[in-house]
């Protein structure tokens, strides 16, 4: 059995958390389909860090070290991954459904003439085959899918799969491969606001909607988010009104999020918004309208005015 491979993700020389999530998920799959977990590490100067992936169930690391792999490029990463995967012929390849993984996955599937299940939230093995569960229509339904090509590729939604430490060190092997022509590359990086937490990676999100009434009023949402170490999200109405940037939008035409805690403030709960945050672990709705649809999705419903309740909640968090 050729086992299960993961494509590790690094930024500025450090593995991202999704790598550990993918490794842990891969270990579970490998225990069922047979074989070991191999991690493909593409980067520059990553050699010393590769062995630590053993902690999450990786038996072997194939490390490609090249200065031109320091930053992700679709071309070099897809060419390298495709060549090594063809060579190693794994049954299953897992990667993150992060921004990088979403860019890479489709290209890789096309290169290898196989299929890909994107943004999966659960994996199972039936009759030796991977069955991946993935939300469609932003979570209005969930599909179970199988990839009939080889390898079976699946990308995993960040923050959903548990990181499981099993201990040990991985065997690290240097690999070299033709990276091909790089036709598009990063020429600059604009750093977002200092300390700003990305919605898709946040453990807690505090979101505001139409009920917040104006851009300045997001101060109280920001304050609560600050106290909770949370990211700030927004409904489509708040974004379309120009109160928040597009990057903050949660919903079917924004980001689909899965934090541990989602606090919806002054959000009525349009179907597109509910789809985008409905798989959050715990949902709180703060809305003065007791009939607002958001209350039907919430674990804890506060029927009250957000302008009164949210500042009080900020105080309570400190206690």
């Amino acid at each position: 059995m050729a086992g299960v491979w993961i494509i590790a993700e690094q930024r500025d020389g450090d593995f991202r958390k999704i790598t550990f999530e993918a490794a842990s998920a891969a270990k579970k799959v490998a225990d069922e389909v047979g074989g070991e977990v191999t991690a493909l590490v593409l980067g520059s100067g990553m050699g010393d860090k590769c062995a630590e992936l053993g902690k999450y169930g990786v038996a072997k690391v194939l490390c490609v070290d090249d200065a031109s792999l320091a930053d992700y490029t679709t071309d070099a990463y897809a060419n390298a991954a495709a060549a090594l995967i063809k060579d190693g012929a794994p049954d299953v390849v897992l990667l993150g459904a992060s921004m990088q993984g979403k860019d890479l996955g489709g290209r890789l599937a096309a290169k290898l003439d196989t299929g890909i299940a994107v943004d999966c939230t659960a994996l199972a093995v039936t009759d030796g085959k991977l069955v991946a569960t993935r939300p469609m229509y932003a979570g209005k339904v969930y599909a179970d899918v199988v990839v009939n090509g080889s390898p079976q590729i699946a990308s995993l939604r960040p923050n959903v799969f548990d990181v499981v430490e099993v201990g040990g060190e991985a065997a690290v092997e240097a690999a070299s491969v033709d990276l091909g022509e790089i036709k598009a590359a990063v020429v600059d990086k604009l750093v977002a606001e200092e300390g700003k937490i990305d919605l898709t990676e946040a453990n807690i999100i505090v979101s505001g909607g139409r009920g917040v009434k104006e851009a300045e009023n997001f101060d109280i949402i920001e304050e609560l988010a600050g106290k909770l170490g949370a990211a700030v999200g927004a409904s489509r109405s708040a974004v379309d009104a120009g109160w928040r940037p597009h990057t903050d939008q949660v919903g079917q035409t924004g980001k689909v999020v899965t934090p541990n805690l989602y606090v919806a403030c002054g959000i009525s709960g349009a179907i597109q918004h509910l789809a985008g945050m409905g798989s959050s672990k715990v949902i709180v709705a703060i809305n003065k309208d007791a009939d607002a649809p958001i209350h039907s999705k919430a674990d804890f419903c506060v029927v009250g005015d957000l302008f009164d309740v949210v500042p009080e909640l900020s105080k309570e968090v400190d206690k």
Partner: protein
Amino acid sequence: MNIVVCIKQVPDTETVIKIAGDGKSIETDDIKWVMNPYDEFGVEEALVIAKEKGGEVTVVGAGPDRVVESLRTALAMGADKAIHIQDEDLYGADPVYVAKLLAKAIEPLGADLIFLGQRAVDDDSGVVGSALAEFLDLPQMSVITSVELGEGSVKVERPVEGQTLVLEGSLPAVVTAQKGLNEPRYASLPGIMKAKKKPLETMTPADLGLERADNLEIIAINPPPERAAGRIIEGETPQELAANLAKALKEEAKVI
């Protein structure tokens, strides 16, 4: 500048999705079909660039006959011509296969720039753009919020987790549009009238030399996991409500 925009027709985002009797597809009877919202950003950007640099905008869509309505919408917005890859059974197909179809149809057009939406709001895959780029052997720049053309090159902004990357790639290239790129125009009445006379070419997968081959198969579609019924937080004053909520989150849910 020869620009192609790929569009997909999807259920309006207001749609309540119902699972069909076969348990692995959705009921399509009462659906209002619209152009994928992210594709509208692609159409808009193409029109702006074509106006500035000169050139032609071709929109390409694959699927059943109803897809023609969305192609006409793009023509009404201002695109010059349309190609419809006619396939009654394409809805729900493997996106990699769809990309193959599009690649075959686009290849002869000699496009300098190809736009798609960053993902379709139905299957949420975001695979077609990058698979299309692979089949056409072109660079891809995905999920972008700005486009700036240079001499034989294109510069884009791509917001990723915690930062925005500025990418530069050679032309021709495949670019997938994210919200924030622009504000798509509405079709004007004269635009709608003109669209009726604009060229719309129809072809089939067989014309493109392809046979349906899906590597991704949906074996079941289920409703989202049921959430346990929620609880109304008690309290007479905002202070009480906040205190009781904080207590529930700390002691019961253990999330803060």
